[in-house]
């Protein structure tokens, strides 16, 4: 019996690294290979030892599929392929393949630089890993091997995000990890879509099945998979309307700029940044505003490059107008130079990274934090421990790392106290290297959080389930309580089984394989002659002879089967004796049987033959005296295999006895 087994190694009742093992009819696929940014030890990667236990990775796994470029979906990939030793194919869309290494490289640099981590994957490993990637086009059916095929569907969410259908024979699984459902929890170098813990998100179910400013809507055809695996982060979240959020965002930026303040918007280079840039560009144009808007150096070009390259992945409006005007070539948004941060007057700066944990955004934040006229707008979730997370949690005095040169002979205390630092808390010393001083920064600037996630809530997930019409649903990447709510909703509304395994738990779905059988025209005509039109929703019983030849199944009439196979027909009759206690004569007994059957089997032709026997279709009933007991009569019932059903029924009927004569 073929079965589907799903084991999340990550993202099972949690929102950490995504890594789901799916086994369909003996084929093993890993869906996503994410990392958890919250850890800097072994725990940041899924525990792959549960796979290696089954033998060599490359022998065990048929392929790895990556849904999109967020690190909690692809961050462990170089580790998995270059350090753990997976050497098989990795599938992802072209934009994901292009953008993935940038993020991985970014994270590697942060891990090695800020956290001083050794034994991390190297640039070369990222490259070698990316060389194992096979790019998949949308709606292209990719044959992984003779039995396993995959197909990508547009998911919106972020550039290049895809839902994947995995098919082995008649069984299929659809993985909709993003589909604008996805959020990217745990990513340090990118945005996350979740509200900080102290915020309650306002509600309105606006699942992004509609296009946003730069990406299209997720779409999948009615593929009726055996299983739909879907992310459920926003299972119970209802959000305020997108237009309200946009209006609010523009209002806040405008007010700050009007009063001469500076606005810092920490972003990740690709994705939401473009969305907000288009928004501000249009607003600036409409309002004829003069304050400069800047974007981190180099990243505008990079982002532009990818959006130009992957224009078919953007939404219809951008695609249509692209020939006349590239929406990503902004008139008001210029490249940022670090010297601009000290310029007087208002300005808006989009700077990376999005969580204020390093780099340009943190440098600018340090400079501007001390002025109450300024504002920082966090458009995404921030991982614990980052400056972004701290200020969103309401912290106004931040302990931050400063650095000073220390050698026994060269000591430069307090050289690095930038504007806004008010006191030094403590100093650590080390023998011969740079050491850090913990300093305190008072944040006077305004801090705003505005979620611009590529969102999907319960409504959106339900919509997708309705669209795909799966036989079973499995929820991942969400919190248990929220999943429970959604699970009930799905089970009630769609009457399908819904599962929510924890990490390490295996869900096994027995599947009933549908075996295609060809039916002969003759047999079909005979069925049609009975006057019943076929109805796709009502299964119908059809009698015939099944011929299995060369892996093909055909149902034909028995006559045709005999002819095709060159066989002679043999009549096979089943015979059964029914003993009834009755002292009457055989003829009288036969008449009673006739009367009884005639009254019960009204739709059948019941005959009493001159020789005393009774027939019902091909069934023959004869009454005889018992050789040893004259008080007992024996009813001999005989029927052909064609009337097996009726013969059995009739026998059971007679065994119950005949009604008493009136």
């Amino acid at each position, binding site marked *: 019996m073929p079965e589907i087994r799903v084991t999340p190694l990550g993202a099972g009742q949690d929102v950490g690294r995504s890594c789901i093992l799916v086994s369909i009819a003996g084929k093993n696929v890993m869906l996503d290979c994410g990392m958890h940014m919250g850890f800097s030890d072994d725990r940041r990667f899924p525990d792959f030892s549960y796979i290696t236990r089954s033998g060599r990775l490359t022998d065990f796994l048929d392929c790895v599929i990556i849904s999109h470029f967020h690190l909690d979906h692809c961050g462990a990939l170089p580790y998995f392929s270059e350090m753990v030793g997976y050497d098989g194919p990795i599938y992802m869309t072209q934009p994901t393949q292009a953008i993935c290494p940038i993020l991985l490289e970014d994270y590697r640099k942060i891990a090695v630089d800020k956290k001083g981590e050794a034994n991390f994957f190297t640039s070369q490993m990222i490259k070698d890993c990316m060389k194992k990637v096979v790019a998949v086009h949308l709606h292209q059916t990719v044959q992984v091997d003779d039995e396993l095929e995959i197909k990508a569907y547009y998911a919106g969410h972020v550039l290049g995000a895809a839902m994947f259908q995995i098919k082995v024979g008649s069984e299929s699984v659809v993985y909709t990890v993003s589909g604008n459902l996805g959020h990217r929890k745990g990513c340090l170098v990118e945005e996350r879509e979740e509200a900080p813990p102290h915020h309650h998100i306002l509600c309105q179910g606006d699942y992004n099945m509609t296009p946003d400013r730069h990406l299209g809507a997720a779409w999948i055809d009615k593929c009726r998979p055996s299983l739909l695996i879907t992310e459920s982060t926003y299972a119970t979240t209802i959000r305020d309307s997108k237009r309200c959020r946009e209006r609010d965002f523009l209002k806040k930026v405008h007010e700050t700029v009007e009063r001469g303040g500076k606005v810092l918007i920490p972003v990740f280079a690709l994705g939401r940044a473009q969305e907000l840039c288009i928004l501000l560009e249009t607003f600036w144009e409409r309002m004829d505003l003069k304050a400069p808007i800047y974007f981190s150096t180099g990243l505008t070009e990079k982002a532009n490059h990818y959006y130009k390259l992957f224009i078919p992945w953007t939404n219809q409006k951008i695609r249509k107008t692209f020939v006349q005007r590239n929406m990503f070539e902004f008139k008001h948004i210029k490249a940022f130079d670090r010297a601009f941060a000290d310029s007087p007057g208002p300005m808006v700066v989009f700077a990376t990274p999005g969580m204020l944990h390093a780099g340009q955004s943190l440098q600018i934040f340090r400079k501007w934090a001390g002025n109450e006229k300024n504002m920082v707008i966090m458009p995404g979730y921030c991982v614990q421990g980052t400056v972004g997370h701290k200020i969103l949690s309401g912290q106004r005095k931040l302990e931050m790392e400063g*650095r000073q040169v220390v050698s026994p002979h060269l000591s430069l205390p307090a050289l690095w106290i930038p504007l806004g630092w008010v006191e030094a808390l403590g100093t650590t010393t080390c023998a011969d290297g740079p050491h850090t001083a913990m300093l305190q920064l008072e944040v006077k600037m305004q801090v705003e959080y505005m979620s611009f996630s590529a969102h999907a809530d319960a409504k959106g997930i339900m919509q997708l389930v309705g669209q795909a019409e799966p036989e079973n649903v499995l929820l991942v990447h969400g919190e248990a309580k929220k999943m429970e709510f959604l699970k009930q909703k799905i089970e009630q509304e769609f009457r399908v089984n819904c599962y929510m395994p924890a990490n390490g738990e295996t869900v096994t779905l027995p599947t009933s394989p549908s075996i295609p059988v060809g039916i002969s025209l003759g047999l079909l005509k005979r069925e049609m002659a009975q006057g019943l039109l076929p109805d796709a929703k009502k299964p119908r019983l059809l009698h015939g002879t099944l011929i299995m030849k060369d892996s093909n199944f055909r149902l034909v009439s028995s006559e045709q089967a005999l002819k095709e196979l060159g066989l002679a027909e043999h009549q096979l009759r089943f015979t059964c004796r029914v003993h009834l206690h009755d002292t009457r004569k055989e003829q009288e007994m036969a008449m009673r049987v006739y009367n009884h059957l005639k009254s019960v089997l009204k739709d059948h032709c019941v005959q009493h033959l001159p020789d005393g026997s009774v027939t019902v279709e091909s069934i023959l009933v004869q009454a005889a005296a018992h050789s040893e007991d004259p008080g007992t009569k024996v009813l001999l019932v005989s029927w052909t295999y064609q009337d097996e059903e009726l013969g059995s029924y009739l026998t059971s009927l007679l065994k119950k006895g005949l009604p008493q004569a009136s």
Partner: protein
Amino acid sequence: MDPECARLLPALCDVLADPRQPVADDACLEKLLDWFKAVTEAGSSLLLLQDHPCLVELLFHVLKPQDLSSRILSFALRLAGIFAAQENCFQYLQQGELLPGLFGEPGPLGAAAWAAPSVRSGWIQGLHSLAQHPSALRFLADSGAVDTIFSLQGDPSLFVASAAGQLLVRVLDLALCGPAEGRISLQAWDWPACARKIVCHLEDCLRSKATPRVMQALHVLTTAFGHCHGLWTQGLWVQLSPLVARLLEKDPVPAPHALVDLLLSVARSSMLSSDPGLWETAAQTLSHLSPTQAGPLAAGILKLQDCPQALRIQAFGVLLQPLAFVLEATAQAPGMPGLLEGAAGDLMAMDTLPPSKSACVGLLCSALAHLELLQPLPQRPSPWPQAPLLAAVVAILRLCNGSAAPSSEAGGRLCAMLGGCVRVQRAALDFLGVLSQGLGPQELVTQVFAILLEYLVSPDSSPTVLKKAFQATLRWLLSSAAPPGCCDLEPYAQLVLGELLSVLRKRLCSPCWEVRDSGLEFLTQMTRHRGGQAGFRQALLASEVPELTRQLLQDPESYVRASAVAAVGQLSSWGLLAAPSSPEHAATPQKTPLEELLLVLTTDSEGFPRRAVMRVFTEWLRDGYADVAEDPERFVARVLQAASGDLDWEVRVQGLELALAFLEQLLGPCGPSAAAPPGALAQALQALCRVQLFEFAFRSLFDCDRPVAQKSCDLLLFLRAKATPPSNSQEVGDGPDVTSVEAALRRWQAGEQGQLPQQARQAASRPCGETF
């Protein structure tokens, strides 16, 4: 504990105990546990609990029936385990009946919360932490925990089930290892009750007809023999090995993977590998399991340092069998040596390979992978059948690309199964590359190069296959140590070089970046090793490859640009980057490679190519590349100027690396008696000032990125070692110059960054002994 943390602890416990304040992220609880673990490892848990009663209150709080989240309950269980790992603290918690409440029947075991895998996992981890002392063992035995652990071995969560198995091993080890270890009998029936109970359970599992139960026992034993080295492991093996051997009587053999893991774990254990019964069981296992199942055991046996020769032969036979079948099925003419001669060879039947394509592919791939890992090992089987293996791999590659013309029915079947199979191609090419270490007879070497060229030329080769084909070709071309009886490779290499460069030219123009990149990596390595050989130089210069490589510096893909940088670096080092000969280029003066790479360094938007340039420049400087050697000061100045302003910290680090190389050239390598002679030092320091090395180094000290600052420290310390005679090294830093350097740096830091800190520079350029 930090006073600040101590102050925060009650508030933290309040938050954790309050169900209205859900903890959003498991990661923070994990980290909190890490912190508690560190605190308890550094000091007394008992004192910690006595000083902070809020912790015990928190643990009591979770015992109350309430709507507490499973993650907090799990956290509390683990926390209690961490505290109770110290015996006095365990007793303290026991007095309060806290531990039975948490880990016994009245605790989560009987509650609805037990349904959450995180709670079950927390329960196991808590017990694992506390299982450190005799009191804990008594507690485990008396509380009925061991029975619960038995049942958790079959938990639906892999994580919980696996942790339960590990906990059983921990309990066994605790019961049998300790002060009384020497007195522990080798007979399991004399062991303490708790250990006996576990052994009985394992026996029951091994006798069970249910495969999952057998598997649980095998996993526990594998962990025990893999991680524990007490004498008791011998007793356990003696007791259970007959039951393990009896598993082989079942058809099919239950849990073959787990059985193989167990046998290998026992074989690797120094305590147990002397048991002759083990080798007998291993031999039986090899013959009972299917070739796919037996492969890992065979490979594991062959990697052992010590094991019976007969078993090694049998194991090698298992790995060779699939390849032997291929060889026989594709043999064109008799006379070719087979892989399995004698009895093993005769046994080889037509149905050696599995009937289904995927199973056949899987078997071949794993056999190739195991052999690939074995080949370089000193304990690999000897004699190593190099020639037939080569023939078999070539045959497999031919079957895969359709160039084989099998005459037998089996060959035809193989052809149909392997045709176009990328997975087998990759595995075979990897193994073929490894086989270059042994070379082979002339005819086979010709075939090897021919098939490699076929793969490199073929438009059907996927990028991953091409990469492996390039790597295998490189290994064969660079293999020069020809053992006696094998042909000299050089003539073949020369023969294929022309064709190879023509393929490379084509591949460098591939629309796939992966292919262009693999081609460039191949070229770089070839040039690095063969750049001085006349034949290679001649062939390369006659091809368009160098010019194409130069053009790839402008490739749209940054990885390719980086590889092109490395290739240009190598080609230039060997003088193989000739000026273009075409007339259209004649009018415009051609940039030198140095200028081209400088352009990449200053203009490329991606860090990867810029870092590649820095690596090449450092190599050039160290190796005395002609363009650099002409005027090293100018070269270093230009590079440092570009690197110091780079946004990528790794480029800046490499800039400092280059500066260090420059220093070494001027002052000699670092060593114990490293001080440079005064005259040379003065000159060197002046040169360093001219190339503005000090500006770069001082600025780097304050770099936002830690590795840059660290590298700068390394550089300055190196310079100090060179500038200071050993006798003065303790006194330096107390002199008046330090103040002036500091003052200069402060001013510089305060806003004169563009300006050279004159005083610092003067101080730095002063002769030895006066500064640093």
